[in-house]
């Protein structure tokens, strides 16, 4: 395992607490407005559902300039008698530390995982600090499958607005599903339940300083769990409503970190995904119910303008990254968008080819990785615009059907991916058998890590 380099104050706190069965991790950066409620929910969840366990709530902060850490340390559980029927045997500890290193969610998680390993926790749950819809039940749903059913990784399953989570819906979910063969609907959801075994595996790895340190952490965790055969399930958490997003957060950087992590892991786990075909559902826990969601405004014109700009100026990169037919299709769409077509439509097949071509170009180093992924932004915005236009009048179930159709296109195009992955000189590899593909059997229950 990689050496544990906990900050001095964290090490001291761990020595005082010594052991904890459950660790709840909350990364934060200027979330003073919402984090208090998240901590309260964590306390209530621990007291209500796990009174027999020792537990600790850890806030790993990225240097907030508001009152985030104070809000964590001062949050109190009010009206306890309304929530609890039994008294917890142990009071939950509460810690808040600034993390060091590359600023980002991944670095915050690393500190939480290191502390969890030090405290020999049996289960860890991590949740975002900007959640408005979090309830104590979330912790039960994230931790129980790990503590009592032997699962290693619990992914969230939410109801989200049809325009929310567009990187998930248009790239990460379809691609992850087509590659690894499991339908984890929210692979970068942000809330996860984890076993000690999986935490130790994460800490063994040496790629914490890459995009994983930032927004890449969620897909990194999910992919490792899926590719290395850990037991994976999903828990239905209801609605995901979060606080107003930081306006300074940059879409291109976010896209680069998430997609960069997906592609980096695609290279690493090539032998795992190579021979997997189709996909299968993953166990889903929790009672599913319908919820109301906040309305979301999306500016389609601005997205299409970005796409037209990309078509006009990024040809030198796209022409190298995309296969000629794909590039021709994109150029034709660019002309259509420039002419102000109201029925702009980037179809599933073309979009899937764009994503797969970018993956192959990344693998073959046809363009520097950073340039390549950053140049995806206008194409991604075109896809989102097309999706918004297409689903304007659709209800959530119909939208979900559209996403399902896109996933099936990705799965169908897997032979195309394999044929272009290594370039023309090595295309004969498409027909070879992988050395160590852990192919999931259709009738097997869940992936196992043996």
């Amino acid at each position, binding site marked *: 395992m990689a050496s544990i380099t906990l900050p001095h104050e964290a090490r001291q706190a761990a020595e005082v607490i010594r052991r904890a069965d459950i660790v709840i991790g909350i990364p934060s950066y200027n979330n003073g407005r919402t984090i208090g409620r998240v901590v309260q929910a964590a306390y209530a969840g621990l007291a209500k559902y796990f009174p027999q366990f020792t537990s600790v709530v850890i806030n790993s902060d990225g240097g907030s300039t508001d009152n985030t850490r104070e809000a964590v340390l001062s949050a109190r559980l009010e009206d306890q008698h309304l929530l609890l029927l039994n008294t917890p045997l142990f009071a939950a500890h509460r810690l808040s530390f600034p993390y060091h290193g590359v600023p980002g969610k991944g670095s915050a998680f690393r500190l939480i995982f290191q502390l969890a390993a030090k405290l020999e926790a049996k289960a860890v749950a991590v949740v975002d600090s900007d959640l408005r819809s979090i309830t104590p039940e979330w912790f039960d749903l994230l931790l129980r499958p790990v503590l009592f059913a032997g699962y290693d990784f619990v992914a969230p399953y939410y109801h989200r*607005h049809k*325009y*929310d*989570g*567009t*990187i*998930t819906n248009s790239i990460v979910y379809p691609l992850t599903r087509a590659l690894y063969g499991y339908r984890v609907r929210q692979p*970068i959801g*942000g809330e996860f339940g984890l076993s000690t075994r999986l935490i130790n595996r994460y800490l063994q790895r040496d790629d914490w300083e890459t995009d994983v340190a930032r*927004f890449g952490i*969620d897909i990194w965790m999910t992919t490792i769990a899926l590719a290395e055969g850990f037991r994976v399930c999903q828990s239905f958490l209801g609605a995901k*409503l*979060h606080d*107003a*997003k*930081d*306006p*300074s957060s940059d*879409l*291109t950087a*976010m*896209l680069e970190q*998430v997609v960069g992590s997906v592609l980096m892991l695609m290279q690493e786990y090539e032998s795992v995904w190579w021979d997997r075909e189709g996909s299968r559902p993953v166990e889903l826990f929790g009672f599913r119910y319908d919820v109301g969601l*906040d309305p*979301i*405004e*999306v*500016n389609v014109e*601005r997205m299409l303008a*970005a796409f037209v*700009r*990309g078509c006009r*100026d*990024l040809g*030198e*990169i796209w022409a*190298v990254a995309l296969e000629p037919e794909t590039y021709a299709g994109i150029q034709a769409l660019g002309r259509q968008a420039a002419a102000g077509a109201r029925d702009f439509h980037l179809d599933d097949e073309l979009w899937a080819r764009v994503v797969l071509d970018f993956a192959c170009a990344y693998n*073959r*180093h*046809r*363009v*520097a990785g*950073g*340039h390549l992924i*950053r*140049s995806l*932004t*206008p194409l991604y915005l075109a896809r989102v615009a097309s999706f918004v236009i297409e689903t304007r009048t659709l209800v959530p179930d119909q939208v979900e059907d559209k996403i399902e159709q896109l996933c099936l296109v990705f799965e169908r195009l897997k032979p195309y991916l394999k044929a272009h992955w290594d*370039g023309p*000189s090595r295309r004969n590899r498409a027909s070879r058998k992988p050395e160590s593909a852990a192919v999931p059997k259709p009738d097997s229950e869940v992936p196992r890590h043996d």
Partner: protein
Amino acid sequence: MINTLREILEAAVDRLHHQVTTYLPSTLAAIILLLVAYVLAAAARWLIYRVFKGMTIDRFLRQSGVAFLLDRSGRLRATRLVAETAYWAILIGGLLIAVSAFDTQLTNQMVEGFVLLLPKLVVAGLILLAGAWLSQYLGRSLLVWAVNENLPSPRRLAAALRIIIMFVAVVVAADQLSFARNVFLAAFIILVGGAVLAVSLAVGIAGSQGLRRLIEEKKEQRDSEGERSLWTHL
């Protein structure tokens, strides 16, 4: 009359004999050396193609982007690079030895001059290669950033940056070769000075309003993103 004619003919034959005996062996030796060098170069290239796999260098060439810089198809392989380098090195070496076989002041000066120039040529070539790589890399970085940030004329910005970087590389390479050093240096100073002046004037006179408009647009964009900030891509 006949004697004079005979003397002239004898002198001509003597000169021809002298020239033949002086230069023919050297010429023959030079031709043989060139042929040997060609055979050796071709053999070395063939051998390297056969034996040398160069997987690590191949990876380096692809990952650094040099492969695509030298060969737009990106199919440049280390084996080819090493084999071609060896081929031309042996061939040029053979040519130098062949020329030196004449052993005249002129050929000796030529060989000496070339040998002294060779390291500088190699360094200058590497400087140009590095300049080309850097100009492409930074040009693309600027291009993608400018497109995503909605800046005006991204391609022109990138092209200007590429030209500046390549020009600096050419100046440094010329300085390395001591070739028209003052001309290049003066041109460089004039260009940089002129560019700075032009940018200052453009920003000062005409660009300030445009810059203000751009900043305001960016601010408006950010503000409107803040309004619909419940939308998250992740």
